[in-house]
C-alpha cells in the first residue's frame, strides 16, 4: 500500500491510499466541522462545512470527499474558511424553523453545536419561516421537517445499512424535502422496519422518538461504524451463534 505525504496547516502527515483529507485530519485530531458526514455512511460533500483550502486550486474543496495527493498543501482554519462556515450555518438557520429553546434536541444537537463552534451570535439573513410539515403518523417516531437540514444521513443509512430505502428527497432547490416511500405518511410506509437508525443518525431534532420532551432526546451515532465494520469483516455476533 502506497503512502502519501502531504501537509495540513504547515505540518506534514501521511495518508494511506484511499484516505480522505477528513479521515487524516480526524486521525490526527485536527478539527474540521462536518454535518452531512457520518463515519460508516457514504460521503456526499453536501453540507460544505468541511471545505478546506488547497494550494494551487482556486476552489474550496470538501475534506470529506477529497483525497490527498503527494505534496498537497491543505489549510483547514483560514479566516476565509471560518467566514464561509459561519455563513453556511447562518443560511441553515435562516431557511429552517430552528427554535432551539423548545426543541427535543436542545443541548444535544449537532447544528446547535456547530452554531457555537463557528461563533454564530446572530443571523444576518432574513428568516424565511418556511411552512413545513410534521409527520407523527409512525407509532414510535416523528419526522419534523421544520428542523431538517437535508443532510440526507437518514436517506443513506436506510438505504446503505438497513437496506429498506424508506427515505428519499422530493422537490428541488430550497423546496427539497425528505419523504417516506411514495411521499406518504411515515406510519403507512410498508418498507419501514421501525429500526430507528434514521432517528439516531439525524443531527438535529428533525427525527426523534415520540414522547420526547424539550431537550430530552439524545442520539447514539457510533453504532453505524460498528455495523459497517462488522459486516465487512463478517463479524456478526448473531451469525456466529447460528453457526454453532
Amino acid at each position, binding site marked *: 500500500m502506497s503512502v502519501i505525504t502531504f501537509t495540513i496547516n504547515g505540518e506534514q502527515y501521511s495518508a494511506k491510499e484511499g484516505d480522505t483529507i477528513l479521515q487524516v485530519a480526524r486521525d490526527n485530531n485536527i478539527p474540521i466541522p462536518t454535518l452531512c458526514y457520518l463515519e460508516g455512511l457514504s460521503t456526499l460533500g453536501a453540507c460544505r462545512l468541511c471545505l478546506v483550502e488547497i494550494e494551487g486550486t482556486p476552489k474550496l474543496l470538501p475534506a470529506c470527499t477529497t483525497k490527498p495527493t503527494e505534496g498537497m498543501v491543505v489549510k483547514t482554519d483560514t479566516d476565509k474558511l471560518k467566514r464561509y462556515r459561519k455563513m453556511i450555518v447562518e443560511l441553515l438557520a435562516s431557511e429552517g424553523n430552528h427554535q432551539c*429553546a*423548545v426543541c427535543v434536541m436542545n443541548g444535544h444537537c449537532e447544528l446547535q453545536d456547530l452554531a457555537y463552534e463557528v461563533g454564530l451570535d446572530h443571523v444576518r439573513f432574513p428568516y424565511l419561516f418556511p411552512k413545513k410539515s*410534521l409527520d407523527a*403518523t409512525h407509532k414510535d417516531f*416523528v419526522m419534523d421537517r421544520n428542523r431538517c437540514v437535508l443532510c440526507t444521513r437518514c436517506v443513506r443509512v436506510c438505504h446503505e445499512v438497513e437496506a429498506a430505502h424508506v427515505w428519499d428527497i422530493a422537490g428541488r432547490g430550497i423546496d427539497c424535502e425528505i419523504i417516506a416511500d411514495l411521499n406518504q405518511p411515515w406510519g403507512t410506509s410498508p418498507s419501514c422496519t421501525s429500526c430507528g437508525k434514521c432517528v439516531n443518525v439525524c443531527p438535529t431534532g428533525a427525527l426523534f422518538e*415520540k414522547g420526547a*420532551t424539550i*431537550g430530552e432526546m439524545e442520539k447514539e451515532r457510533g453504532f453505524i461504524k460498528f455495523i459497517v465494520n462488522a459486516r465487512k469483516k463478517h463479524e456478526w455476533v448473531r451469525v456466529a451463534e447460528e453457526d454453532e
Partner: protein
Amino acid sequence: MSKLITISPVTRIEGHAKITIQLDENNDVADARFHVNEFRGFEKFTEGRLLWEMPGITSRICGICPASHLVTSAKAGDDILAVEIPETAEKLRRLLTLAQWLQSHALSFFHLSSPDFLLGFDSNPATRNIFGLVAADKEFARRGIRLRKFGQEIIEILGGRRIHTPWTVPGGVREALDPAKKDQMLNWIPEAKETVKLALDAVKKIHKKFAKEIPEFGNFRSLLVGLVSEDGGLEYYDGYLRIKDGNDNTIAEAVDPKKYFEFFGEAVEPWSYLKFPYYKPLDYPEGMYRVGPLARVNICDYIETPLAEAERKIFKKLSGKLNVVNNSFYYHYARCIEMLFAVEKIEMLLNDPAILGENIRSQASINRLEGVGCTEAPRGVLFHRYNVNKDGVIQNADLLIATAQNNLAMNRTVQQIAARFIDGKKGKITEGILNRVEAGIRCYDPCLSCSTHALGQMPLHVELLNAAGEIIDEIRR
C-alpha cells in the same frame, strides 16, 4: 368639552399596557379603561406541534410564572394520555407550584407594590421602585429579594434551572428529587417564615396608613372564582372550582375544572388585546369575576396550615358581617397569606417521605383527543385545553389565563379610583394621582405577557386632551 387622559405604559407590572381616562363636559370622570397593547399568538402557533412539546412551549409564555404554565400544560397532557401520575410526581409538581407562588408573590409585594406603600403614592417616581426601597429600608428589601430567591432556588433544584425548566411533562416529572437537596431547601424555611411575617406586619401597617384611600380602591362586589380541595380547603394544584358572589353566596360548587369552558366565555373589545372572560350564566359584562389571592382566600373554608389559617381568620374579619372581602386592595394581604401558606406547605411536602420516591413518570400514548389542565397560578386559576389528533398533534389550543379573567375587574377598579381621585376641574392631574390609578391595577399583579398569550416599549406618557384632541397637559416619566 371632554378630555382624555392617557397613562402609558403602566409601570411596575409584568408587561405593557396603558390606561385612558375620559373626562366629560363637566370635567368629571366619564370612563376609564385598562388597555393591553401586547399580542402573543400562542394559541395559534402551537397548532401542529406535538402534545409532549406543549409544556416546554407554553412555559415560554411567561418568564415570571413559567412553572404554572408548565404544570398546567403537563396536566392537560396527563388528561390526553389518560394516566394517573405517580404519587411522588404529584407531590413534586405541588412543590414546584408552591415555589412558583412564593417567588411570584414575593416579586409582586416586595419589588413592585411595596414602594408605593412604604415610600408613598406621591413620593418621587424616580426612586419609587425597588432601588428606592433598598435605599429607604435595606433590610426589608433584602429579605424580600431573598424570599423570591428561595422560590427560585426550589424551582432550580427540581428542574435544573430557575426559568423555563422543562422538568414537568405529560405523565409526571422527568427527574426525582435528589435527597441531598432536600435539606438545602428545608434550611430556608425559618428565614422564609420570618420574612413573610414581616410582610404581613407591613401589610397591616399599610391598612392603617391608607385607611382613607382603601374604601375606594377597587371596592365592589363581583363573582370570585378559584379551586378548592374536595373538602373546601385552599387548593393550588387539583380539586374543584367554586364560584361565590360578592355576598358570600355559593353560585356553583364542585365544578369539574375540565368543564370550565361551559361556564366561562371570552368577550373581545376593540381597544385591548386582552380578552374579557365572563361567567356565562350572567352574560357579558355582568358576569365579571375575580380570580387570584383575593378570590382564593375568600372562597376557601379553611387553609390546611396553622399560621396561614390564623391569618385567614383575621382577613375574613376585614369585611365585618359580610364574611367576604370585596376590596381589591386586600389582594396584597391575601397574597401575603398565601406566601405564608406556601412556606408552611413546602415544609410539609419536604418532610413527606413520598417526596423522595423514584417512581415519577407514567408512560402512555394518546388515549383521548381532548384534555384540560387546571392549576392555580400565582395570579389565579389557569386553564389549558388541547385537542389533538390520534398521533398527538395539536389541532386546537385554548389558554384561559388568570390576568385575563381579572380584566373586567381591573377596568372597574381603574374607573373607581379615577372617579375618586381625579378632579378634572383643576385641569391638572398630578403624577401621584395617576400612580394611584396604576396601583389599582397592581393589586391584581397582572401579567400581560401571559394573558395576551411583547411588542412595544414606551416611557410613561400621560396626556390630557380636550375634545378637539389638543394636548392641554402632559406628563412624561
